[in-house]
């Protein structure tokens, strides 16, 4: 498998009802894979996410949590 296509084991998922769009998660992200948008933060470059969970820690509203996507993923052929 191409190493550039392997995502992190976990990725941050947002609860939009809790998010107050403060943008702290976007600022703290070390790989800049999170970006702000009119709909709140979004994971614009998911393959760059290191699953460091800095965005989860910094969120004042606990709107972010790390979700393991491996149960729904299949490797590429």
């Amino acid at each position: 498998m191409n190493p550039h296509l392997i995502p992190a084991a976990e990725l941050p998922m947002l609860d939009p009802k809790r998010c107050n769009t403060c943008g702290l998660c976007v600022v703290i992200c070390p790989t800049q894979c999170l970006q702000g948008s009119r709909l709140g933060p979004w994971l614009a470059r998911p393959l760059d996410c290191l699953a460091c969970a800095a965005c989860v820690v910094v969120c004042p509203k606990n709107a972010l949590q790390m979700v393991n996507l491996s149960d729904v993923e299949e490797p590429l052929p």
Partner: protein
Amino acid sequence: MRLPRIMVWESDGWMARQLRELAAENRWLLRSVRSARRLRQVLNAGGVCGVCLLQFEPWSERREPIELLAEMHLRWPDVAVVAVSDVKLPEAERAAWTAALFDLGARYVLFPPLTKPVLEDVVSGLMLATLRRVIGDEEGPGITRPARSEPVTEDRSTIVPSQKKNEVIDLAQEEDEA
């Protein structure tokens, strides 16, 4: 969290292999699934937006891709669906299938010849549309195409036909020279 992906539902993994470089270049997730159940699981995981390629077989008893296309249009409108067939059909049938699938919610319907530049061109356009819809900024980040692939939208007027193709080979003259 909105999670941009390219999803491919196909039987052999060919389309996913053609789109690897495009996904890697733009750091998007690329997922190839073999069943509708898996695809629904991925979509139900939440926050999915992006592009989905569905392989369908015209005139087949297997209607699942077409049913899923209609379902995706209603349940996951943030996912642009491209219907792809590897079956060669007469032009009239292609037009009829294209119209029917457009009505069901497909953004593009592709028939052979399917090549990597065609797939990359279609998918990169839909990726850009996804970015603009999510970010809401016309001058937001663009989509980068892999360096090795060339867009199919080249200026055809600059292509000069080879003179050799139009040459008439005079076999009688060649025999005289021999």
